[in-house]
């Protein structure tokens, strides 16, 4: 029973989201149990499918291929998402070990907070124009995930207010600053997971998903530099990048409701 082809959105997705989205779009009668037994033809236990949709377990490759058939699309993109989630799971596990943190926290969903914060900041005009709180809330909710909960949006808004990134007067809000600094251990881990997800997706798009190769840019620039000048180099790099990002964000065609994509530009630089 192939479902209608599903339109791509630019919301960040893990493999769990594809399972959930496919089931929900087939109709409200498709419970987890019915979807597992009828649509996926018993290839997965309903309880296990529930875990997959919640991000508590990762599906195997055969199940992802079966889902791609249900969606009526080639499996390569979904398989790449599965690989990325596996890498993130392993990265999150090792990161917690490196930071001496307990292992009972969720792995794949760790990056959610950082992703939501970036969407909340980018949903406000760069020039400090006032927008309605309701419009801003709606934009965050539609950007961060199709099944975003009200609590998720409230959490992002409270955090951005607390950090002085937004200013609110009555029912209007505007940006006050642009740079979010992860301070608590939980925020730092969430940000590390988000950065790892961006890097993993860039590499996989370039190497394993031919139709997405052009949407990623991966390049290593190298040089010899006096150690004392490294801070100056980073300062100039940051200024150049900020100017470039603001130039393109100001383009009237960069309307999130039209053809605009959400582009992450991850900069990493280190000595060897």
């Amino acid at each position: 029973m192939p479902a209608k082809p599903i339109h791509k959105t630019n919301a960040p997705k893990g493999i769990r989201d594809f399972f959930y989205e496919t089931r929900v779009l087939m109709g409200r009668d498709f419970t987890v149990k019915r979807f597992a037994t009828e649509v996926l033809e018993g290839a997965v236990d309903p309880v296990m499918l529930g875990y997959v949709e919640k991000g508590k377990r990762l599906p195997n490759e055969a199940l992802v291929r079966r889902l791609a058939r249900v969606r009526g699309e080639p499996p390569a993109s979904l398989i790449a998402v599965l690989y990325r989630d596996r890498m993130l799971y392993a990265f999150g596990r090792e990161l917690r070990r490196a930071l001496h943190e307990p292992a009972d926290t969720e792995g794949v969903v760790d990056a959610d907070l950082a992703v939501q914060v970036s969407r909340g900041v980018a949903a406000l005009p760069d020039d400090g124009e006032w927008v309605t709180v309701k419009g801003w809330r709606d934009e965050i909710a539609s950007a961060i995930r199709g099944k975003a909960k009200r609590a998720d949006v409230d959490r992002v808004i409270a955090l951005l207010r607390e950090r002085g990134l937004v200013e609110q007067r009555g029912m209007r809000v505007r940006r006050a600053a642009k740079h979010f600094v992860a301070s608590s251990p939980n925020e730092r881990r969430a940000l590390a997971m988000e950065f790892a997800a961006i890097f993993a997706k860039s590499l996989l798009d370039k190497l394993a998903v031919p139709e997405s190769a052009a949407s990623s840019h991966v390049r290593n620039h190298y040089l010899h530099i006096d150690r004392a000048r490294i801070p100056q180099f980073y300062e100039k790099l940051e200024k150049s990048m900020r100017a470039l990002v603001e130039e393109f964000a100001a383009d009237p065609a960069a309307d999130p409701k039209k053809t605009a994509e959400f582009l992450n530009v991850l900069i990493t630089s280190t000595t060897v």
Partner: protein
Amino acid sequence: MNFARVRKSLIAIAALVVAACGGSGSSGFDGAIKSEPEAIEKATTEGTCVDFKDTTYCASGAPVLIGDDSAAVDFDESSGPLPCPQLPGDPGCTTTVGFEPSGFPEAAVLLGAWAESERGPWTLSSVDSTVPGSGGEGDEDDDVVVVLPDAGDGEPSPVVIAVLVYLDAVPDDAPAVSLRLRGFEPDIVYVSSEVEVAPSGLRNEAER
């Protein structure tokens, strides 16, 4: 449609055009320090020294370079709330927080200050706590004197202690209270982590 209505419509369309552009931002593990409380928090959290607007903010024990030599201030660690007795007739309870300076030049002058949090306001400690620079021999423990004016309820209060280091001289017009430590115009500031002060009742015991 009159002129005012046309003008209103044009403004609304212009606002929509502006709002249609996407915003941008960034996130990271560190960023430019924008305020003194941020500098203090970063220094005390990371156990280091942080420069902000011509003043260096340091955590207890963090070495700071003065010429070719390093110097530091170490605060005495207390295991529990510091007792803060209030004598009859005193405006508040009084306690002291010890610190040990090392490596500062002879000409340096150290003053004490305290606040309820790193956000201030900061109160200069009593003149008795002014200590000479600790260059050369004879390094000794010194104290920052804290007088809590409102110590009536006996509940422990958090305070943060600062040692202000002047490498040359203290400005003549230094205020007694300043919202920010840099209002005292020091060269270097050492800030303690939060200390609990427990007002205790010598007066109350005498009344029993």
